[in-house]
């Protein structure tokens, strides 16, 4: 199997996954007395006229057959046409993209994930070469502990200490409320202030992620370090750094790639909690608010988008795997 055939196979599989998510998403929200419930309560409202009722029925397509509705829903999902939010009445996709929520979440998630991966892998590789030493035991213990700490609690304690007690960082939000009321802030201030607001939630999400990467890297490295080709590399007179990071790590990274893609769903859960704690105006906070406010179109769209991002992460992982490991193309 050539690399191209392998990629093609993964693409087909990815499409199947997307279809599965679309169908599951439909059934979940069919089970909820969501739209019907919301409109049904209109009927009990003496101020609502039957024209209004009719209007909403048409707006949400309740007068159509389930099959027609599914068809519309299906194409809506594929074209990112999710309907309007009950709360803001804006198209959901505008509330995702134009509101800056997507950018905020990508900023928070991106920086913390990169940091978590880099720190976790670096420590994992270094520690695996010093198995049983103090630094090994210490790193593993710290990683296991951060692994066990609830992420929302970490956020709250950080706010209490670094914001309320020390006043080093703001206690929440993505940027000051007063921004953009009077035009855009100057660029330097824009960047510095955003970094200041970003720091605490990023720290929390980084701590949430790095432990897993460290432990996994360490475990796969320990397995790899006992392989014969590592001994060969040492016998060749390579520097220990080259042995670890080139010869051992490239092999050890294979399970790492798969595991981190599968763990992406968990990271999203951590992001929801972090954004809620820090009142960070991103998709996670928005999803939480939509659940509390029973904003069904938003819930449905968000669930779809989160699942989609996990699928994409898995697809990317498959690609990376195919590139790193020459054997997979010949399976």
């Amino acid at each position, binding site marked *: 199997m050539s690399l191209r055939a392998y990629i093609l196979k993964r693409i087909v599989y990815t499409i199947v*996954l997307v279809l599965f998510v679309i169908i599951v998403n439909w059934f979940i929200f069919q089970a*909820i007395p969501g739209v019907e419930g919301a409109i049904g309560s209109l009927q009990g409202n003496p101020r609502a006229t039957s024209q209004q009722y009719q209007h909403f029925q048409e707006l949400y397509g309740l007068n159509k057959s389930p099959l027609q509705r599914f068809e519309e829903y299906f194409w809506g999902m594929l074209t990112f046409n999710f309907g309007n939010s009950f709360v803001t009445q804006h198209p959901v996709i505008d509330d995702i993209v134009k509101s800056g929520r997507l950018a905020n979440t990508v900023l928070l998630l991106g920086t913390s994930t990169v940091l978590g991966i880099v720190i976790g892998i670096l420590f994992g590789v270094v520690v695996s070469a010093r198995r049983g030493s103090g630094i090994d035991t210490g790193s593993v213990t710290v990683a*296991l502990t951060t692994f*066990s700490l609830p992420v929302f609690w970490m956020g709250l304690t950080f706010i209490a200490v670094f914001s309320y007690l020390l006043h080093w960082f703001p206690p929440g939000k993505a940027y000051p409320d007063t921004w953009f009321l009077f035009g855009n802030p100057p660029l330097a201030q824009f960047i510095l202030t955003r970094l200041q607001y970003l720091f605490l939630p990023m720290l929390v999400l980084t701590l949430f992620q790095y432990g897993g990467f460290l432990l996994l890297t360490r475990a796969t490295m320990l397995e790899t370090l006992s392989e014969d080709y590592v001994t060969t590399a040492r016998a060749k007179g390579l520097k220990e750094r080259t042995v670890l990071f080139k010869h051992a790590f490239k092999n050890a990274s294979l399970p790492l790639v798969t595991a981190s893609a599968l763990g992406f769903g*968990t990271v999203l859960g951590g992001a929801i909690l972090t954004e809620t704690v820090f009142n960070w105006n991103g998709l996670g906070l928005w*999803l*939480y608010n939509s659940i*509390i406010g*029973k904003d069904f179109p938003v819930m449905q769209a968000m669930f779809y988008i989160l*699942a989609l991002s996990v699928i994409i992460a898995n697809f990317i992982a498959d690609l990376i795997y195919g590139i790193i490991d020459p054997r997979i193309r010949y399976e």
Partner: protein
Amino acid sequence: MKSGTESNLKFNLRRFANFLRLMLSNKMAAVGLFMFLVSAGAALAAPIVYPQNPQNVASAGFLAQPQWVSYFPEGYYLSSNMVVVNNPGFNSPSALQEWSYSNTAQSPYVSISTATIASTGSIQVFSSSPLSLTVYKTFHYPYRGPPSRFTLPSVAVRSQGASASNPIVFSLFLNRGVERSFTLWSKNLTTNDAWISPSYPLDSGSPSLPIAAGVQGGLLPFTEVVFSREDDYTLGFTVTFSAPGTINVTSLGLRLLGNAYGLLGADSRGSDLFAELLWGARTSLFVGLVASFIGIGLGLLVGLMAGYKTGIVDEVLMRFTDMMLVLPSLPLLLVLVAVVGPSIFNIIILIGFLGWMGFARVIRSQVLSIKERPFIEAARAAGAGTRKILTTHIFRNVVSLTYVNLALAVPAAILTEAALSFLGLGDPLSISWGQIISNAQAVNALNDWWWIIPPGIGIAFVSLSFVLIGYSLDEIFNPKLRRRR
């Protein structure tokens, strides 16, 4: 046959003992085991030590700090709970001994009555002539700072012989030293035979109380006005008869709720946080253990099925597993809990049913790799039944994997439950650590460390105990990670 099972039992016991010894020889596992025993002890002890749901009991003042803080310099002003009246229900004649009377000659007029309201007795004052009598108790308030709150719950009086023209005047007061008197409640009793309570709660937090006491427009909380210093205080009531009559007073229990209490203080409703912490251990462990048992059980089932039956069954099961793995679990849980309602059983079942996929894959690949091993081939060649061999070998390999994954699934379930509770989607009827933190955040009490910190440590402690056990089990069982011995 019988001896067979017996020796089997013995063998299993010995294996278990060996296993335990192996675990205890690993430092991490021993620490984890110890931590687990501590948390399990806390969970079991909770309903014995605190039989009542602590969230329904006001044990201390609002946001009372832990008792031990008062031993530190910055806690110099903290006050503790005080019960002023030993027997507020007047259940025995000796209850009179703690009270004094303004006119000692009149003391025979005062007696304990069996007239009861809600199974308590009362103090009875009888007069055959117009008379004013004060019954009081003086106590020392030993703290520099005021109590967080004081209450006189369910005070009630009943008069006999009163009329509109000849009312019996009842007045309940609390005096600081001799110079300052606060009337808590005064009432002209004109009707007879009915128990009468004040129209407002006799609670320092009630806005009517300062008005009755004649302290108006005060910026300070009423407790600080009354208990402004360390001094002798007097609780008592004055009865003025203008004609012969009798009055019964009950439930004169003045409670001072301190702003220091217990091991871990109290929350914004005055509930004992240590008791809540113990109860939280119950919820966490229960949810964690049951949910992970469900998840691991399902994973075992699916994994074994997929591993045993190759072909279409395997394909379908594994595709489904992969698809389920793609669904982000916390958002899915949030949506589903919002749909089915946040009862603890719903939460357990949902966490369990969303936690089987990873383990199913592990088990399946294990079964497949065992099938490929040469000894299976050899045994088959020797004529042994494939099924039996597979079963014994797979069982042996799968058991250790199950231990490891079970130990690692429990903290995941515990953390998920905590997250749900924190987001307000936990069972409102059972106390959980996530819910305690959520309550603290709801009233923005992030600075009240005694409220925020312990439940987080609790979650981390229980999770870490399982993580340590699981991690070291993995090191013990997984030959690739095993150290050279």
